[in-house]
């Protein structure tokens, strides 16, 4: 393990103990690398492949930890962490997409009919994220569960391990989180979760 790998492991430990500063520092350390890895996958992947988060995260882990083999201390936490970062990547990407659609950042005060064609996925990702932001302000842990399950493609068991909690708790939170998100998505800005 390189010293950077050690630092990442330590930070991950601190983060799983609830230290949010450690998370920020982690993002600082690895966000660019993850972005580069995701970018490369997207640029080079076969056309119809589904973006495989697991492969992506595995590769990121190998690169960041400097570990050559399958020795994975803190692997589960790392998955959770990558899920959060994937969310950010995706949102950045959707925003970029959205602003391209509109031809740049300047807010236009005039609507034209071309504006009606915005990709569904872009709007959906943005809406999911916004609903999630709201949920996050209520319950950060529930948001973390959603990140693992939805953005990281992790199973309930993996999520439980990553967040250091029980399968039962994850199931409960996931059930409730989906209800809250759905309500926020269906009813728009007025909705209280």
């Amino acid at each position: 393990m390189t010293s950077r790998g050690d630092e990442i492991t330590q930070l991950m430990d601190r983060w799983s103990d609830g230290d949010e500063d450690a998370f920020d520092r982690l993002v600082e350390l690895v966000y660019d690398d993850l972005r580069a890895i995701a970018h490369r996958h997207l640029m080079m992947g076969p056309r119809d492949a589904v973006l495989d988060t697991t492969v992506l995260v595995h590769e990121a882990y190998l690169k960041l930890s400097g570990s050559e083999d399958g020795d994975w201390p803190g692997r589960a936490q790392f998955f959770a962490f990558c899920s959060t970062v994937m969310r950010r990547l995706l949102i950045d990407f959707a925003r970029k997409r959205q602003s391209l659609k509109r031809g740049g950042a300047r807010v236009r005060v005039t609507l034209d009919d071309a504006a009606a064609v915005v990709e569904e996925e872009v709007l959906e990702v943005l809406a999911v994220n916004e609903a999630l932001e709201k949920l996050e302000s209520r319950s950060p842990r529930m948001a973390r569960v959603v990140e693992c399950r939805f953005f990281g493609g992790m199973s309930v068991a993996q999520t439980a391990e990553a967040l250091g909690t029980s399968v039962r708790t994850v199931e409960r939170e996931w059930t409730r989180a989906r209800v809250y998100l759905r309500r926020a998505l269906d009813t728009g800005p007025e909705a209280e979760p």
Partner: protein
Amino acid sequence: MSERSNAPGSEAHDRWREIDRLFEAVLDVPPSERDDFLIERCGSDTSLLRRVQELLSAVSDPDPRFDGPGEALMAALTAERVPDDAGGLRPGDLVGRYHILDELGRGGMATVYDAERADGAFEQRVALKVLRRGLDTEDIVGRFLGERQILSGLEHPNIARLIDGGATADGRPYLVMERVAGEPITDWADHRELSVRERVELFVQVADAVQYAHQRLVIHRDLKPSNILVDENGTVKLLDFGIAKLLDSTGQAAADSLTRTGIRPRTPAYASPEQIRGERVTTASDIHQLGTVLYELLSGRRPFEGSGTELETAIMSGKVRRPSEVADEGLRSVLRGDLDAIVLTAMHVQPERRYASAADLAADIRRYLDHQPVQARPDTFAYKARRYARRRPEVVVTLSAFALLLAGYVVTLVRAAERLEAERDRARVESVRAQQVSEFLIDLFRASDPNTSFGEDLSAFDLLERGEERADRLAGQPELQAEMLGVIGGMYMSLGRLDRAEPILRRTLDRLQTAESVPPAELAVGLGQLGDLLQRMGRYDEADSLLVASVDMARQSGDADVEANYLNAYGHSLLAQGSYRRAEEVFREALDVRRDLSRDDESTARSLQGLGIALEEQERFDPAEASYIAALEMMESIDPEHTQVASTLSSLGRLYMTQGRFARADSVLRRSLSLNQRRLGPRHPWLGLPLNELGMVAARQGRYEVAEQYFRESLAIQEEALGPAHPEVAVAVNNISFTLIQQGRLEEALPLRRRALEIARAAIGDSHDNTGWFAYNLGYLLERLGDLDGAERHYREGLAILRRALPDGHFRTTTPMVALGDLLARTGRESEGAALLREALEDRISDGAAPAAVADVESMLGGALASMGRDEEAQELLEGGLSKLEDALGPDADLTEAARERLAAFRNR
């Protein structure tokens, strides 16, 4: 804001927790017992009961969006990909006249191979660069070959030659370049432990080579040590000259799919500020990169550290530590002075402040080597003044006039300092004058007879007019007269009567300039007030010269308040002119000036807001948000009901809208609106804009009925305040028509669209892009109503206007192009239609448009070509377009459906 009411500890948050806990608990209860359980637990709290029951009912009805992981969504979103590089080359493969020996490396856009000449004509090892697949349309290859022609003309001993190029068997463009055996310049120098002088001598070769290329109009764009090799003999070779541009011109659409800003530099650590901003790259960018390389070569450190946003921010800030500060102890004294100045001049954050050419840089380095004084110099007032004079002739007059005045003030001040007595006199004179002004104002109010007043507004103007008359009588005391006129002019401004303010502020300035001894800070205010006024009136050239002069003068006199005020005004002028980078610098300067005062005030909040706008316009959303929020908190601590709070909320709301955070945008904009309604009354013209923005948010969310209501309110206010022929009225009318069409009320929308266009034609003419949009929008509606002649006429009008109003190849111009092209192709004018569609397709690809926007045009173009009998091309485009639309929008989207019909029509002929 809603996010605040969500904060832990708040009432709303506690309530949410209560609901959530009960919701959690009830999930463990068997379904048949849940109602009883809830009734018991809730007691008299029926609202709690109702909320939890609602949540429960949603559990059994899960949202399919969250059934599985979001991967399918991600995949659909990121479907814009460069196809697989499956055609990668292996050792032994033949490309043109060259055998592939080995793969050397892969970049984002191309793969580089070690290769050798295969026809045995002579032995030659080369580097062969092959573009990735998917970029190889005929047109792009053509452009690529054209560029190659220019590059192959570069013959210089220090530039690696471009030998050959062509297309591989499967159509991918490739380049063949001289293969250079050498080390990066920094490594080479370190391994041989070169002295500073030897390093500088080595670097001159680099600058000369760059100058040679610049004279042939070739910009490198990616200068960095790994592109500057030195061979065994100590000869420098620059690699990849102009390659970056070649790659960008062919692959921008693909390369951009995940990046945050438009054109990203290939190597961020060596990028120039303008590259990071995605602006047009000129030779000045190469100069910056030369400076960066020289910095590293001399000091052993890169000027900018970090990665990602941190790195980009550092580069754009232009704040660089001198090479001598970061170098090892032993080098510091050698680097300090001339070499520091040379490096920092080359790296100046403003392109126009760098060396004008690589030759100038080389010449300055030679001066250093010859122990002559170098030309590089630190920023000085005189230097800046000269620079301004060179760039903007209209400023010269103002500045030199003030330079004279300034000399006078310096003398005055020095004398005053010498004589304490005089200083005291001055203070006394000033306090007397302040008293006179306030007496003058009190007098005015006393003189206004309540019995003859015509209502509040009129009497305010009445008062000001009377004030003007009185000030006229003070001709013998120009300083006092100036101050009073300044107060009156400022009042007209704040009452919104800019036209009345102008002549008065001009007289103010005139009095100040003719008075015998005016403190420079007062003159700065006089200049700044007029500049600010003209800036608001849109007369930017004159405004800028006044504001720059005002700021310089305030700085000389050490009055930070005045300096910051007019830096703000200057920043707003730059924003209005679209110079966002410069505006950012100016607002940062204003903040720096005030930092020393370390207090919260409105002016600082305005600077923060201005900075936020400048950042937002550069798509740097996170720092923009932080800046708005800082401004907001500062203003709220001073006066939570201030209009400045509303204005900042409005900026923040717009930012959220741009980012697609619609719920936040909605809540922030509504807060801004209600603040303004309280302060300004329900019909104030300022309310039109926030109402329009709220409508935009609702429309973007697909809540068209809500949007319609907002737009209608906005229209009522605008019509009343601005009259029925004002361009803002046209915007509101157009936006209402949009929401009507989305609701299927086409007939109702038609008169509105006609009206919007008529207003715009008369009020803003046909060089404004809005007029073009209104024409296009009318055409679109007519087409949907079946009036194809009318549609064509208005599409043509809209296209012609947008071609004039927007830059060449602008993404948005393609909208009417596509509509018109498709209409023509469907009404028997296939070749004109196909030409337009092809143009639009190219523009969209090179602008990095979303895949659906590209695929839609492909399908239309396929349809046009099919009617021209060009079946082979047509089939490829029709099928490709359809499959991409299916990927991007799904099988049921309208555009996908239309593409499917086109393909079916083609097959059934």
